[in-house]
């Protein structure tokens, strides 16, 4: 057990270091850009020197770079005040900064967008796991048969279709060409307002996003199962007369589970940063659109905040998966 604790603390230390490195680099890259961050605070074409200088001071852009970064990091844990006295704008922890263009704390913007992206990511994760793992198993079991060929075709089309084209084609076929389509062509309905409307508005985005992932998972699961089937313990299980179903469920899938879970965990974490294309096609106000709009408007605090947030989720998920493994598999703890 000591080994496990040591491993976890080492892994968490490493995670913290990577997070610092990534956040620092993102911060640095955007500080090096040829922009005056203060004059961007009131939009692209704003030139009131009074406002600009006041915002420069409020956002701390008049301080040296390292101090700015340090204040940003402290703000993440302790919250942050922009400006002094009664006029100060307060953003509670974890503060990712303040957007003067949108007059909101970046954290609030992120938390507004996150439920949309979460709806999208969770729904499509379920869909692509069912389809991908299911088809992968079928393809591996009936290797070389018609089902295998069909799944290969599915994989090929799924990996060759850019996501935005899948989405657009679904819109053309199911929404524009069919008049009776129950699915809207875009937009988001919050589930607490109208749960049916929410579900209907999410179906096409789920299918779009899941299609590409399901193809990758089908290929992955198929090759995993085929590889595991050649192992000695599978042959032993077959030799002692176990049925194919029991071998698959109790032996093969158990071994295939770990890599599938890792892959799903990382893909899911990556999506939480925003499924930019799917959100763009279906006009969903999620994380992807938040950052895409921020880039178009050059809303620097939002760009930096969302990028660091997205990177942090991936890094943290990586650490969680590693630690979960250490529990399952003692060989990892070295």
């Amino acid at each position, binding site marked *: 057990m000591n080994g496990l604790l040591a491993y976890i603390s080492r892994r968490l230390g490493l995670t913290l270091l990577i997070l610092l490195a990534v956040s620092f*680099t993102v911060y640095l*890259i955007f500080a090096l*850009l040829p922009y005056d961050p203060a004059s961007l605070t009131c939009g692209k074409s704003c030139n009131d020197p009074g406002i600009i200088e006041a915002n420069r001071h409020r956002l701390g852009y008049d301080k040296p770079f390292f101090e700015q970064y340090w204040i940003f990091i402290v703000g993440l844990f302790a919250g942050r005040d922009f400006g002094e006295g009664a006029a100060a704008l307060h953003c509670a922890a974890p503060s990712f900064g303040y957007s003067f263009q949108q007059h909101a704390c970046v954290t609030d913007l992120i938390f507004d967008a996150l439920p949309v992206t979460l709806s999208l990511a969770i729904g499509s994760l379920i869909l692509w796991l069912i389809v991908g793992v299911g088809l992968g198993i079928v393809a591996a079991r009936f290797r070389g048969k018609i089902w295998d060929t069909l799944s290969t075709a599915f994989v090929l089309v799924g990996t060759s*279709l*850019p996501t935005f084209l899948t989405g657009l084609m679904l819109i*053309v076929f199911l929404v524009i060409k069919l008049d009776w389509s129950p699915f809207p062509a875009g937009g988001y309905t919050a589930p607490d307002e109208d749960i049916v409307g929410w579900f209907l508005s999410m179906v096409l985005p789920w299918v779009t996003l899941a299609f590409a992932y399901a193809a990758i998972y089908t290929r992955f699961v198929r090759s995993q199962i085929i590889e595991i089937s050649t192992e000695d313990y599978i042959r032993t299980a077959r030799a002692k007369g176990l049925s194919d179903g029991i071998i698959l469920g109790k032996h093969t899938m158990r071994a295939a589970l770990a890599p599938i879970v890792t892959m799903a965990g990382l893909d899911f974490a990556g999506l939480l940063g925003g499924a930019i294309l799917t959100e763009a096609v279906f006009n969903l106000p999620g994380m992807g659109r938040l950052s895409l709009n921020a*880039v178009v408007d050059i809303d620097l605090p939002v760009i930096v905040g969302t*990028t660091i947030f997205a990177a942090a989720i991936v890094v943290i998920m990586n650490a969680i998966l590693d630690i979960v493994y250490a529990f399952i598999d003692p060989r990892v703890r070295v």
Partner: protein
Amino acid sequence: MFSKEAEQKVTGHSPRELAWRRFKSNKVAIPSLVVALLVILAVILAPLIYSLLGIDPAARDEGALDNRGEVPGDWNGISAKHPLGVVPGIGYDLLARMLFGARVSFLIALASTAITVFLGLLMGIVGGYFRGRVDGVIGRFTDFLLAFPTFFMIIALSAPTIERMEKSGLIQGNEARILYLIIIFAIFGWPYLSRIIRSQVISIRERDFVLSARALGASNFRILVKEVLPNVWTPVIIYVSLSLPGYLSAEAVFSYLGIGVQPPMPTLGTIIADSTKYMMNNSVYFFIPSLALILLVLTFNLLGDALRDALDPKSEN
């Protein structure tokens, strides 16, 4: 006393012959190779095709549009004069624009692939061959790059980087945008290849032929170029054939998001992005370039898979 017949049967086959045999026996390999070569030929010889078909990517046929700028009829004005119809709003010939656009798209994809391969080979070989601290530094750097939210960074860095390129005065407008895409694709692309190459080189450097070259007093540079490099072509060929379609669709994706090349210069991506504006009334205009891109990517993916199966038969996808 062996018969002459038996002697003839036991002929050796070079790895190249064996790979070619495996490639030929794959049902989709030859068709996808032929289609891929035809597409590349069509892109290279685009000017010839323009004059053969009497189309012109810069000529506007306003007679083909109605007074609202839409294409009359259901089929996007497909006719002998315009084999794939016309571009609504402006009256360009769609086939001519697609051929022209494909040239730009291929330029971006090929240049990105070339730089990716160069960087990946260099870093992978150097890291895998010299090991030790050099390898450690390259390894951490690739980890770091792979940890980045690539998609975000490409979008977020586009406007400022292009602006800075333009301010330098060396390159303007769409040329700067093309250069940006090429460079940023390569920067985030090489770590994948370098990892594959590195793992190959680590085993190659322990092989007898490298050892004997070293025993004969060959310099590191000579060993790298003459002994190691010829043995890593397999992953490079596979990588190239799979990254080309990847970059082709990446160009389309970023053009759709408004990050890439801007009109009036066509690429497959900008044509598709433009066609989405007319999706409601003229879905034929949307489907033609979209299907072209999908078929293109599909062909190169099939070719890449076939090449991988032929060159590296042990890998099961």
